[in-house]
């Protein structure tokens, strides 16, 4: 019975287990790590300013937090759309299994969400107190709740706030790490799937999450400021690009290391993974994820980091690179989540995946779920001004 891997190299005939025909974790499960990765990356940017004191990031520090919050509100949505019985989702909070990575979602998400909300409320307290005084009726009640019914902005209060913000953001870093790291472990802990079961999986997920978050912040910053015809702080952009490069190099190296070790080790399972990447996933992995969306940005980032470039061109190139990297991370999630399920556990064949248009996990649903955070970002910007100079009015 141990000849299961014999012939997997050759794959002369395709055999999948009868129950392996269907791909169970579809596009919503591609989207969930993508969205929670954006939250993570945005939070890292904020942490660089608030905890590590990188002063050049001041222009986008608050923006990153609001950006993270807008996406944080939405990350439960792809999961609820995926569950077969979403009405039972409370079971995750009632009886979470201590051995299951997925069970962490309920409490980790609640804690991370609460933490992020608190951080934002503390940072924006002066602005919000101002709004309490300016508004009437229900809006006044709303702002009173957001300020915990305290209008005290004395130096002692502000000093206390500063300390608390630093403390909260500092513990926010491990919380954010766990928030996305556990997602990587959901895959890394599945020994039945050779594409997934690797200790590198949580690491790859985390680093590419940071890449997507920073790229998302850059692109959103450029887009919103260009639309508003406001100035873009190129110095801030430079620091972001440098940080992005660092995280991306790490993420890319780990991804390639994973592929290379499968190729080098050459035992049964590893051959199946190679067959997957060179077969059904050839276009989405080698051409799109690696070729177009990794090698090209590597060169672009190298150019941006090494050479002196005029501001206008720098902004355009930053936007292009960020867009390509956002695509790269999306493709990576796709290739891992869906690609990993294409390989049958028989180790003798591959199945196919057909995205539907109108399914609850279909293409239309994906577009809607991706659009909602931006809509939320717009609404949040009315309550929490995104840019420091706007608050001075």
């Amino acid at each position, binding site marked *: 019975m141990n000849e299961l891997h014999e012939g997997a190299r050759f794959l002369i005939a395709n055999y999948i287990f009868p129950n392996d025909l269907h791909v169970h974790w579809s596009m919503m499960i591609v989207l969930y790590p993508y969205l929670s990765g954006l939250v993570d990356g945005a939070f890292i940017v904020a942490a660089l300013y608030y905890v590590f004191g990188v002063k050049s990031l001041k222009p986008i520090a608050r923006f990153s937090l609001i950006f993270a919050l807008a996406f944080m509100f939405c990350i439960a949505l792809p999961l609820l759309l995926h569950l077969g019985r979403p009405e039972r989702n*409370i079971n995750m*909070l*009632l*009886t979470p*299994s*201590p051995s299951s990575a997925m069970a962490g979602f309920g409490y980790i998400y609640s804690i991370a969400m*609460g933490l992020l909300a*608190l951080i934002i409320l503390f940072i924006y*307290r002066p602005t919000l107190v101002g709004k309490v005084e300016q508004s009437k009726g229900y809006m006044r009640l709303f702002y009173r709740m957001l*300020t*915990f*019914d*305290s*209008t*005290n902005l*004395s130096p*002692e*209060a502000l000093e*206390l706030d500063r300390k*608390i913000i630093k403390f909260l953001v500092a513990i926010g870093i491990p919380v954010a790490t766990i928030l996305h790291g556990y997602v990587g472990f959901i895959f890394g802990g599945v020994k039945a799937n050779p594409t997934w079961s690797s200790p590198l999986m949580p690491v790859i997920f985390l680093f590419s999450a940071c890449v997507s978050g920073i790229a998302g912040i850059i692109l959103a910053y450029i887009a919103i400021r260009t639309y508003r015809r406001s100035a873009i702080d190129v110095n801030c952009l430079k620091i972001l690009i440098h940080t992005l490069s660092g995280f991306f190099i790490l993420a890319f190296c780990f991804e390639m290391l994973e592929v290379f070790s499968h190729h080098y080790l050459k035992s049964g399972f590893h051959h199946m993974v190679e067959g997957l990447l060179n077969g059904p996933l050839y276009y989405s992995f080698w051409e799109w994820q690696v070729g177009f969306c990794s090698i090209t940005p590597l060169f672009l980032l190298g150019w941006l980091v090494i050479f002196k470039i005029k501001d206008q061109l720098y902004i355009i190139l930053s936007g292009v690179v960020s867009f390509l990297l956002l695509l790269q991370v999306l493709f990576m999630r796709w290739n891992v989540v869906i690609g990993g399920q294409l390989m049958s556990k028989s180790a003798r064949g591959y199945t196919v995946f057909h995205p539907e248009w109108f399914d609850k996990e279909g293409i239309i649903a994906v577009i809607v779920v991706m659009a909602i955070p931006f809509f939320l970002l717009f609404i949040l910007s009315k309550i929490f001004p995104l840019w420091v100079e706007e608050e001075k009015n």
Partner: protein
Amino acid sequence: MQSSYYSHVIRIVLGIVALAVLGFIGKTVLTPKSFGTYGHYRADAIEEEANIEIRHWTNAPCFACHAYEANLHLYGTHKTISCEFCHGPYADHVTNGKKTGVLPVKKGEDMKILCLRCHNKAIQARPEAVIKTVTMPEHLKDQKVKLTHTCNQCHHVHAPLKYINRDKQIVGMQGDS
């Protein structure tokens, strides 16, 4: 009167504590009672699974009414076959001691396909020691019968060798298959 410089922090902490207490109460109330008895699961689910309706009742209840077929079946070469495989589950036929449905009986070409499910020699993975196999229509040619014959025209389905052996006795051959 303005709040003190730390009141908002106190209110936040109190809020978190209140939420935690409410959450804990909610968890205790909403978690099913039998959860955790044997492990991290609802112990009542074991009995729920144990009480699922049984649909196949083995050959015994069939023999209770169909004594003629029982007699043939139990002394023939098909004694290990389940009635319910060819005819369908008992639950489709009898409920609470009363007949509630008629079970199908295959005939003609359908019957031949059913017989060949086990007895087809074209599938090589059938050891001779386990089951006797033939190929169609070669078997008919070897036995010198019409090629339109169905299996049951020579073999009694419930005792496949009954007539074959009797015929051989009549003709004077050894009672062998």
